[in-house]
């Protein structure tokens, strides 16, 4: 049957879901703290895969990705918290939550489109600077809008994002992006990465497709942002600055530019590593009373990690390969 492999994949997902859910229900191994890290990892999967679409598959230099997430987060957050004032106690409100998420994602995609249109003709290094600037501009604008909380952030966001919601949306997002990548459109994206001139000269409208990649990537980043703020119950400008983007960039590189499977592994790996690092540093702190080991050391480790990956394993964990189970059968 045509979709045998996909059914298998969904089955694995279902098993994973049931396992985690049950373990958490009885607080065996997967206590609420661990579940939260899993939730966070799943959101990062969406962020990483969507950035990978732009940077890894289409070969563009976008380093302002969290700006898109911010748009999605704030718009969906404002809708649920300030305008509609809904909360999860009434399960029917979940419909409104999804609508809020979609609106936030569409807005984010639109911003991606508007940003992509004028800037995608810039050469790589310049595009990087402009996307970097864009991310910072978004953050600065949000910081100055009192209606959404300004520098204090948007507080009291209802906790609509639970494991079930996040898991389903993540799986759907991964499959959607996977389906796009393994199609003629995906080949168009990849050809732009390989050789833009040649791509244009075999009939690909490279400008259109670069903008497509940006728009789709931004859409999913916005979706992730919406999920994130409804998980943490807060949206704060500092979460969506350059630092956040670097974190996602490291995941994209560590997993492999051009590998969805790699992005998934890296998202989980680095999120858990980050938590582990926090404990490690606190433990070191306790044994060395004179030197306080603060949060800055985490960032030192991350930046060193990025440099090491770039120097020694440029292609990341998976390079451009995928797990067999994610490759659609018609490819073979």
């Amino acid at each position, binding site marked *: 049957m045509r979709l045998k492999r996909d059914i298998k994949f969904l089955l694995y997902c279902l098993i994973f879901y049931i396992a985690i859910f049950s373990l958490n229900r009885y607080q065996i191994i997967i206590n609420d703290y661990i579940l939260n890290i899993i939730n966070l990892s799943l959101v990062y999967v969406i962020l990483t895969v969507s950035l990978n679409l732009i940077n890894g598959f289409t070969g563009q230099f976008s380093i302002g990705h969290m700006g898109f997430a911010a748009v999605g987060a704030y718009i969906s957050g404002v809708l649920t918290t300030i305008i509609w004032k809904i909360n999860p106690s009434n399960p029917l409100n979940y419909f409104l939550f999804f609508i809020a998420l979609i609106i936030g994602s569409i807005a984010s995609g639109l911003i991606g489109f508007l940003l992509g249109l004028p800037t995608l003709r810039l050469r790589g290094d310049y595009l990087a600077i402009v996307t970097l600037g864009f991310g910072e501009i978004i953050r600065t604008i949000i910081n100055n809008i009192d209606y959404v909380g300004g520098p204090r952030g948007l507080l009291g966001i209802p906790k609509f994002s639970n494991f079930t919601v996040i898991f389903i949306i993540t799986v759907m997002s991964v499959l959607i992006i996977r389906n796009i990548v393994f199609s003629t459109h995906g080949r168009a994206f990849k050809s732009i990465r*390989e050789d833009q001139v040649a791509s244009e000269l*075999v009939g690909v409208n490279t400008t259109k497709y670069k903008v497509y990649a940006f728009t789709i990537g931004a859409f999913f980043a916005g979706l992730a942002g919406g999920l994130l703020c409804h998980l943490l119950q807060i949206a704060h400008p500092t979460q969506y600055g350059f630092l956040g983007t670097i974190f996602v960039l490291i995941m994209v590189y560590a997993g492999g530019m051009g590998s969805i499977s790699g992005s998934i592994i890296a998202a989980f790996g680095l999120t858990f590593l980050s938590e582990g690092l926090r404990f490690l540093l606190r433990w070191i702190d306790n044994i060395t009373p004179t030197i306080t080991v603060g949060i800055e050391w985490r960032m030192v480790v991350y930046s060193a990690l990025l440099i090491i990956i770039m120097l020694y394993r440029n292609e990341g964990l998976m390079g451009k390969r995928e797990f067999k189970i994610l490759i659609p059968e018609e490819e073979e």
Partner: protein
Amino acid sequence: MKTVLSLRNVTHYFGGLRAVNNFNIDLPEGALWGLIGPNGAGKTTIFNLITGVYKPTEGKILFEGKDITGLKSHIIVDKGIARTFQNLRIFNELTVIDNIRVAKHFKADYKITDSILRTKKFYNEERRIKEEAYNLLKIFGLQGRMNNLAKHLPYGELRKLEIARALATKPKLLLLDEPAAGMNPREVGSLMELIHSIRDMFNLTILLVEHQMRVVMGICERIKVMDFGETIAEGNPDEIRSDRKVIEAYLGSDGGRC
């Protein structure tokens, strides 16, 4: 006889440097012509102007009677002009068959929503694309390598792949930029046969740029010679072989005999 390609008084400057000066050509349907000249004569620039990489500073380019001057490259490809490159531009990290399939993208008849939802249209179109790509590879003898990454192919096969990729866009005019570069005599021989047979098989008009005189003299019906951006001679192989200006500028004292 229908004229497929016309360049009328095409002149092109790069800043202060004049790369092409008053170039004219009327390429008839089905022709197999050659464009030769020393390095830097402007031959590749002509190809770049025809395919829309640059917009000519002056002059017009007409394809099948219609003005295509200054149009974007992918639109020109859509109209039916394809090319290969002097220094191979293969999609290295894509498979051999994917290189061909990219060239079939602009004619692919399904949208992104079809990809996402994996509709019937998606499967039908993908099947058609794969079949056409496979058949094309077979003509070039590359079908056995179809799932290998292009970067793993030997040089001679990459040159063939690039021609196959150009043909995948179903062009009426094919521009070949030094297709024999770096090939040994045996490979050159089979290339010459290949060019002849694809011209007939696909009803093509072909213009090629080449330095290897065996190819030019061997298969070209008519030859234009360029130097310093200008045409210095034009004629059939015998005429060119004995033209003094050409010999001076380019061919050397043996007149191009191999």
